[in-house]
């Protein structure tokens, strides 16, 4: 009797040991990579403190970040503050951010880009070999964009619409990450100095800035309306001319037009309405689309959830953009039709990141397909000497891969033509003409664009927005799509549009030969 029970006990104990062994395997084998990537893991800290770290180069092979060992400490230096936000920092004291964080395992050499090598290295107990990164960003364009923003707070994001390659992504004010990535004893003071500076330089406005978009949102509204069949390019709203002066009442809320002068109100169809950026027209369009379909299209464009630059697990995350109130990190339903009418022209609860709006422009430029953005082009063997340029041994190459269709090809070309009109046609030129690349020495190339003037209330100057792409004539494949925001920069046409035009023109000049 006892012997039988002892035998059963033995079985239970055996099972318990098996469960503990399974728990052990979980941490030691299955979850080990996750544990090893955590910032406060002593292994990560020790490695950051003493080990060499891979260098980072721009698309042309210009050095952006490198490490050297001195006094037993690995010190990292950065060559260009225009890259401060996208690169982030690798600090012994403050951990990592930006690309330095997303690619920490490769830069530190903790994992090999090739998983097979990882296993071999583990078995042979080889020391970590750091690798170098090459970005898709061209330093010349990045610096040009940063200089265009000048002393203003803002951001510029430029994407190759066909591939999703990030061509420029800069946020101002910037900061120098070198002092906080060097001696751990000096880092806290340097970090505090940056925190004290005006304009909160540590915030990456391109990825984390949350802004009211104003009229650039009309591109999303128009795409949803044309693609769902709610309107055609010829649709007009009979009451619209009268409402331009009196206002358009939706559920007790009166939608008012912005200052149209010198243009006189008329019965406008899609292209003219976009050229003069009629809030009344697009409020009607939004209501035609309806709340559910509008949210649906917004989600297709990438709103309502975080975006990723690059792919998991080494993705740079982009804060989610919203078209309605945020609810648990997602868009809530529209509370009423008045909210939808306002969202349709980019006011109300809409809050967007510059990366999101650059992707909207890139989607129209790319025939309705939203490219998958990426910023690291390849991983290379660690360069013998970072100052002499990157190694020729490429270990891994990345591309945008696929992309997702958001609207039909036909819708994209209709919106594209209207965006060209918005910059170049007689009415549009009055508002967004400053965004044309022809102003910056580029001839024979059409510019598509849209300005935005995000009203923030009676006592605050509006944010100045521009999104656009070139070349946009006929069926030409656009080479660059941009989003520009200048915080409290006034009207879109006054500040953001010329920056957008200049940046796109600069890119065409750099690649003319």
């Amino acid at each position: 009797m006892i012997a039988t029970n002892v035998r059963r006990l033995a079985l239970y104990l055996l099972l318990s040991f098996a469960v503990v062994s399974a728990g052990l395997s979980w941490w030691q084998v299955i979850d080990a990579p996750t544990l090893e990537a955590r910032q406060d893991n002593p292994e990560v800290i020790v490695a950051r403190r003493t080990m060499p770290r891979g260098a980072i180069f721009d698309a042309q092979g210009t050095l952006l970040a490198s490490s050297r060992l001195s006094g037993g400490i690995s010190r990292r230096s950065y060559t260009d503050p225009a890259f401060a936000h996208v690169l982030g920092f690798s600090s012994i004291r403050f951990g990592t951010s930006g690309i330095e964080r997303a690619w920490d395992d490769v830069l530190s050499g903790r994992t090999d880009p090739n998983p097979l090598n990882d296993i071999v290295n583990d078995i042979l107990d080889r020391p970590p070999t750091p690798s170098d990164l090459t970005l898709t960003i061209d330093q010349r364009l990045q610096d040009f964009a940063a200089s265009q923003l000048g002393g203003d707070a803002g951001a510029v994001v430029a994407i190759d619409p066909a591939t999703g390659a990030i061509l420029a992504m800069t946020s101002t004010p910037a900061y120098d990450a070198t002092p906080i990535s060097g001696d751990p004893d000096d880092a806290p003071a340097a970090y505090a100095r940056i925190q004290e500076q005006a304009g909160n330089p540590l915030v990456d406005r391109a990825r984390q800035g949350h802004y009211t978009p104003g009229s650039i949102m009309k591109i999303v509204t128009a795409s949803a309306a044309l693609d769902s069949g709610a309107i055609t390019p010829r649709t007009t709203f009979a009451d619209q001319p009268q409402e331009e002066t009196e206002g358009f009442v939706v559920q007790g809320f009166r939608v008012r037009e912005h200052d149209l002068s010198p243009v006189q109100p008329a019965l406008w169809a899609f292209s003219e309405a976009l050229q003069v950026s009629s809030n009344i027209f697009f409020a009607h369009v939004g209501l035609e689309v309806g709340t559910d379909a509008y949210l649906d299209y917004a989600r297709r464009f990438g709103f309502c959830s975080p975006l990723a630059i690059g792919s998991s697990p080494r993705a740079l995350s982009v804060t989610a953009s919203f078209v309605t109130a945020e609810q648990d990190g997602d868009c809530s339903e529209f509370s009423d039709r008045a909210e939808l009418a306002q969202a349709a022209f980019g006011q109300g609860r809409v809050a967007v990141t510059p990366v999101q709006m650059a992707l909207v422009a890139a989607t129209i430029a790319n025939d309705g397909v939203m490219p998958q953005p990426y910023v690291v082009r390849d991983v290379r063997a660690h360069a013998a000497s970072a100052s002499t340029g990157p190694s020729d041994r490429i270990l891994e190459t990345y591309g945008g891969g696929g992309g997702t269709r958001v609207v039909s090809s036909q819708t994209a070309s209709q919106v594209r033509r209207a965006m060209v009109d918005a910059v170049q046609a007689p009415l549009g030129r009055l508002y967004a003409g400053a965004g044309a690349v022809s102003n910056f020495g580029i001839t024979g190339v059409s510019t598509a664009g849209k300005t935005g003037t995000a009203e923030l209330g009676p006592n605050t100057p509006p944010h100045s927005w521009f999104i656009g792409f070139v070349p946009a004539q006929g069926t030409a494949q656009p080479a660059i799509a941009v989003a520009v925001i200048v915080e409290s920069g006034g009207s879109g046409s006054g500040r953001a549009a010329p920056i957008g035009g200049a940046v796109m023109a600069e890119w065409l000049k750099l690649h003319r030969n």
Partner: protein
Amino acid sequence: MLLPLLVLVPLGFAATHIATSGKADVGPMQLAAAYVVMMLAAHFALVAAGHRGDPLLLPLVATIGGVGMVMLNRLSPDVGKTAAFGLDLDIATTQVLWFGVGVAAMLAVAIGLRDDRVLRHYKYTWALAGIALLVFTFLFGTEVNGARLWIYLGPIGFQPGEFIKLVLVVFIAGYLAEHRTLLRDAVWRLGPIRIPPLPYLLPMLAIFVIVMLVVVFGKDLGTALLFFGIFLTMLFVATGRRSYVLVGVLLFLAGSFVASRLFEHVARRIDAWVNPFADPSGAGYQTVQSLYAFGRGGLFGEGLGQSLLPTAGGRFFGVETDFIFAVVGEELGAVGAFALLALAMALVFRGLRVAMLARDDFSAMLAVGLTAGLGLQTLIIAAGVVKLIPLTGITFPFVSYGGSSLLASFLIVGLLLAISHRNALAADAEAGRVERGP
């Protein structure tokens, strides 16, 4: 069976020396030699005394202890010196001395305890002594790290909990051997509900109360869990009724829940278990760091001397006691940790075999209780360190640093040897009777 030990321990010492000093010589070998010689001497002492006990118990214990010695020798420089035996010694030396004390106690019990009546007949006396020791600890014990577990006799501190564990097993074994059939078969009916005979369950309630007292006053969750686990295991083996275990587990969960509401230190432990990463530098620090250690170790380990855990945050508290299993995982990998668990499991199976071959209920129950003590203790600390259950301060038998734990564990092995010796003698006598039979 002791032969692998001759290689294992010196090899571990040499590997540690080479890895930490960078020199290609074997380094100091005195402690390794002392340990191996001690175990061989214990073996020959048993042989010389004509001992017929289980032949695998000592080799298994010596091998598990050998792994422990290698780890403690490696941790010694990181942990630093401690005051022990009135001397300023490093932990590896102290542990070897305690091994000596433990082995001597084991031999004394294994060879000296020819008759178990002294245990069987005075079970209430033993129980009283245990409770007295418990109360004494609550009243006069020294609080270390928030738990009152220690009593100091001059320079030598010991943890009464380890010895109360033994006394508890002796008492329960005696009680259950006497009342086994009643507990198993008698049933009271309360309408349609069948309940066990209440008077015979009183000891169970008494034990439950004692265990909760340990939690409340001693703040020693690990020991409480272990006591309760031993009790339920023995009750199960004696009666074969799973319902007792089920009710016991439910009672324990309910008690723990109440305790977590009443006492902040219990609630903190549970929070740190549910999500240690919520506060990785505070309440969850130890758990998070030990998980990192396992993660770094991977399948094959970083190698002896390579663990980062002992120096995490300067000096990681409990690395030589509660968290030694994490260091094993980091340096010897999952493979090494599995091997250690397998050895512990083999030891448990040998102990249960002793119980199955026992000639009387008391010996059987005693062997079950003692073995369950070793097995559950290993499971509780290993499961705690790998975050399967809340982490409780308790030692890994024969591996963790600590004199009381080592001495108590060797007393258990001594008792198991004594029981298996009598089993063998009884089997011989039986065989002899059959042969000489008419």
